[in-house]
C-alpha cells in the first residue's frame, strides 16, 4: 500500500519528522541506506543549545529544546541525556560584552542564564586556563547521544523503515538504486548533506567537521564549553575555521571540537585542521595534551548559503518537503523541524513563525 509520507534519511531530523508525521495518523515510510542515526547524527556532538544569532534561530532552537524536554523524559537511559548546560567563555572584554548581550537577550526571552566573573569561572571550570575574562552559563542546555534518540523516534513512531539506497527523490516518488519506484502522498528530503545528491538543485553543501574523543576523565570539565568567538567563526560563509568547543560525556569521556571546512566531501582526517583545532582547545585547557585520545573522526554538516536551515515545501518539486541544511544545529533543531513539517502538512498554525526557514527563499523559477 502506498505510504502517505516517504522520508529519505533516518538521521535525527528525518526521525523527528517521522515521529511528528505519524502523530497525524499518517502512514510513514522512512528509507535509509545506513544505520539509523548513523550519518552526521552520529558524527556530531549531540549538543542541545539555545542560539541567538537571529530571532529566527532563537525561536527554532528554543522551541526545539522545549520539545526535547518532553522527548528525553520518555527516552531510554541509552540516550544519555545530561542537562550539563552550556558555558560560553569570554577571553577578553570584547567577548565579555558579547556575553552580557547574550545574557540580556536570554532575560528578555525567558531563558535562564548566569554571568560569571573570572573567579566564578575558575571555580566552575578549574581546568580552564587563567586570565579569561569570564563567561555565561545557560543551565538548561544539554547533551545527548543522538543515534539512540533517532532510533527511539523511529521505533516509537511505528513508521516503516526500509534499508535501501535512494538514487533519486523527485516530487512524490523515490527511485531506488535497484530501479524500484516507490510512490507516496508526499515526500520529505531529510538526507542531510546528501540531499542534493538525490534531488539536484537543493542548495546544500557539506561542511566538514572533525572531533576527537578521550578516555574517561570524570570532572575534567562540567559543562559543554564554547568560546564566544564561536559564532563569528562558525558562520563565516566560506573557508576554514576552528573554535574551542568541548563536551563532557556522561561517562567521563571528553569530546573535543570543533572545525569547519567548506565543500570538502571526503571523510578522511585532515591533519592540518585537526591540529589547529586541538591547539585552539589547548589554549583554553592547558592540561588537555596529557589526556589520552582514543578516536578521531569526521562528519559532514549540511550547510546552506545563508546559514539557515531549509524546512518546508520545496517549490521546485511539488509534493516534496525539505528538512535539511541545519549545519551544526541539526541535533538541537530536529524536534522543532519535525513539528514544523507536520504543521505544514496538516495545514495548522506552525509552532512558531518559521518563514525565515522556508526553502522558497532559495527558489528562483
Amino acid at each position, binding site marked *: 500500500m502506498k505510504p502517505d509520507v516517504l522520508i529519505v534519511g533516518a538521521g535525527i531530523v528525518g526521525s523527528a519528522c517521522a515521529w511528528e508525521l505519524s502523530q497525524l495518523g499518517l502512514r510513514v515510510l522512512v528509507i535509509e541506506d545506513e544505520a539509523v542515526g548513523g550519518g552526521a547524527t552520529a558524527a556530531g556532538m549531540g549538543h542541545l543549545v539555545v542560539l541567538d544569532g537571529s530571532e529566527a534561530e532563537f525561536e527554532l532552537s528554543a522551541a526545539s529544546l522545549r520539545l526535547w524536554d518532553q522527548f528525553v523524559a520518555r527516552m531510554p537511559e*541509552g540516550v544519555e541525556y545530561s542537562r550539563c548546560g552550556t558555558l560560553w567563555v569570554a577571553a577578553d572584554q570584547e567577548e565579555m560584552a558579547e556575553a552580557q548581550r547574550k545574557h540580556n537577550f536570554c532575560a528578555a526571552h525567558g531563558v535562564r542564564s548566569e554571568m560569571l566573573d573570572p573567579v566564578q569561572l575558575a571555580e566552575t571550570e578549574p581546568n580552564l586556563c587563567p586570565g579569561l575574562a569570564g563567561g555565561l552559563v545557560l543551565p538548561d542546555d544539554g547533551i545527548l547521544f543522538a543515534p539512540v534518540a533517532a532510533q527511539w523516534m523511529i521505533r516509537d513512531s511505528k513508521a516503516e523503515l526500509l534499508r535501501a539506497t535512494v538514487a533519486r527523490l523527485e516530487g512524490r516518488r523515490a527511485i531506488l538504486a535497484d530501479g524500484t519506484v516507490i510512490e507516496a502522498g508526499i515526500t520529505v528530503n531529510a538526507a542531510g548533506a546528501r540531499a542534493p545528491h538525490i534531488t539536484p538543485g537543493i542548495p546544500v553543501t557539506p561542511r566538514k567537521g572533525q572531533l576527537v574523543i578521550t578516555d574517561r576523565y570524570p570532572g575534567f570539565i562540567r559543562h559543554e564549553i564554547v568560546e564566544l568567538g564561536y559564532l563569528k567563526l562558525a558562520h563565516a560563509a566560506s573557508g576554514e575555521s576552528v573554535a574551542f568547543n568541548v563536551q563532557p560525556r556522561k*561517562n567521563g569521556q571528553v569530546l573535543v571540537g570543533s572545525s569547519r571546512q567548506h565543500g570538502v566531501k571526503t571523510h578522511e582526517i585532515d591533519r592540518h585542521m585537526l591540529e589547529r583545532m586541538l591547539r585552539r582547545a589547548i589554549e583554553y585547557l592547558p592540561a588537555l595534551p596529557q589526556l589520552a585520545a582514543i578516536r578521531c573522526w569526521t562528519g559532514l554538516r549540511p550547510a546552506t548559503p545563508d546559514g539557515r536551515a531549509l524546512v518546508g515545501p520545496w517549490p521546485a518539486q511539488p509534493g516534496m518537503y525539505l528538512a535539511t541544511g541545519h549545519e551544526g544545529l541539526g541535533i538541537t533543531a530536529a524536534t522543532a523541524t519535525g513539528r514544523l513539517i507536520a504543521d505544514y502538512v496538516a495545514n495548522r498554525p506552525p509552532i512558531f513563525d518559521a518563514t525565515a526557514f522556508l526553502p522558497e527563499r532559495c527558489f528562483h523559477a
Partner: protein
Amino acid sequence: MSAPFDITVVGAGPAGIAAAVTAVESGARVLLIDDNPRPGGQIWRGDWNSGREGDWLNRLAASHVQLETSTAAIDERILDKGRKLILATGARELFLPFPGWTLPGVTGVGGLQALIKGGFDVANKRIVLAGSGPLLLACASLAREKGASVMLVAEQSDSAHLRGFTASLWRHPGKLIEGARLGLSLLGSAYKTNCWVESAQGREHVESVQLRHAGRTWQERSVLLATGFGLVPNTELAALLGCHVEDGAVHVGDWQQTSRPSIYAAGELTGIGGVDKSIVEGRIAALAATGREAEARTLFSDRTTWREFAAGLLRTFAPRPEVLSLAAANTPICRCEDIPLSEVAAHGNWRDLKLATRCGMGFCQGRICGSITRALYGYGPNSPRPPAVPAPIQALLEEREL
C-alpha cells in the same frame, strides 16, 4: 619530505626483529619502533641467554638498527619516517565471554605468562588454566615452576583432534611444542581434554571456577583463572593505512607485500602462526624490501611449512560451539561501556550495534569486544580511525612546540 630511513619496522617482536636485523644486514638504514619499553614483543621478554630468543636479541643489539621503544605508531605519519614500511604489530589475546570473565583474578593466559615473567608471585596460589592450545601448557609449566598450585589445565579441544595434531608434530620441532610437551609430562592428571570453563564465581575476586567435562560439572577452588582461546591480529594500524584486511588478518602476497605499495606485513598480523612463521615472514619481508628477492625465495618453503603448521593449530584448537555460547544474558560483552550480551545479541552488524548500545566506543575501541562479536557473530569493527592505539592528545600534534 625526504625520508630519513630506508625502512621503518613497526613492532619489535620476533617478526619485527627478524625484519629489522635482516634489512640492516642488507645495508639499509632501518628504524624499529615499538610501544613497549623493551624489544621482544609479547613472547620474547628479554631472555638474552636463551637459544633463538637470545640470538635474535643479541643480533639486534649488535646491529645498526635504530631502536625506538616506548613509541607508538598511531597514524599515517609513520609513513614519513622511511621509504618503505614493514608492519609487524603482532596479536592480542582473544577473550571469550562466560559468566564471571570480568572478575578480578581472571586473566588471559598470555597476560598471566607475562605477569609471571615480570615477577608476579604465584607461589602456592591455586590456578586454573582453561581454553585451548599449547600456550595453556607452556603457561601452566611456567606457573608450576614458580611454585603455583596448578589445579587444572582445561583443554576444550577433543582428544581425537589432539591426537591427529600431535601425530603431525614430528615435522615441527619448536620451543612452543617443547614447552607444551614438558607441561604435559609435569601435569599428568591435572590436564583434561574435552574440558572447559563454564563460569567463574566470587564476590570481589575469583574464588572458584565451574568446569565441565564429559557431561559433568564441578567447582574448582581457585584464586586465578587464566583463559586462552587464541590470538587476534592487531590490524588497526594496517587498516588505518589502507592495507586490505581479510578475515581479521592483513592480506599479503608472496613478498609479504600488502595491498598498499611499499607497505609490507609480517608475523601474527598476517594470520596467527607463532614465532617460527613470524621470523620467516619478517626475513622475507626485509629481503624483498631491500631487493634481495632471490634470497627471499629460498625461504618460501620454510614459510609454507610454518603456515601449514599454523593452519593445523587453528583447526585443532578452534573453539567448540559450547564455548562460544557460555555467556548469559547479563554477562558483559563490552567491558568499557558495560554492555551485556542481551543488548548486544539483537543487532545484525557492528555499526548498528555500536550506535544503539555504545559497544566499542570506550577505551578499547572494539579491540576486545569487537573480537568477541567477531567470534560470536562474525562481525566486528570495520571503520579504522586514528589513533591506532590510545595516545595522549599531545601525540596527535606535530613534535614542535605546544
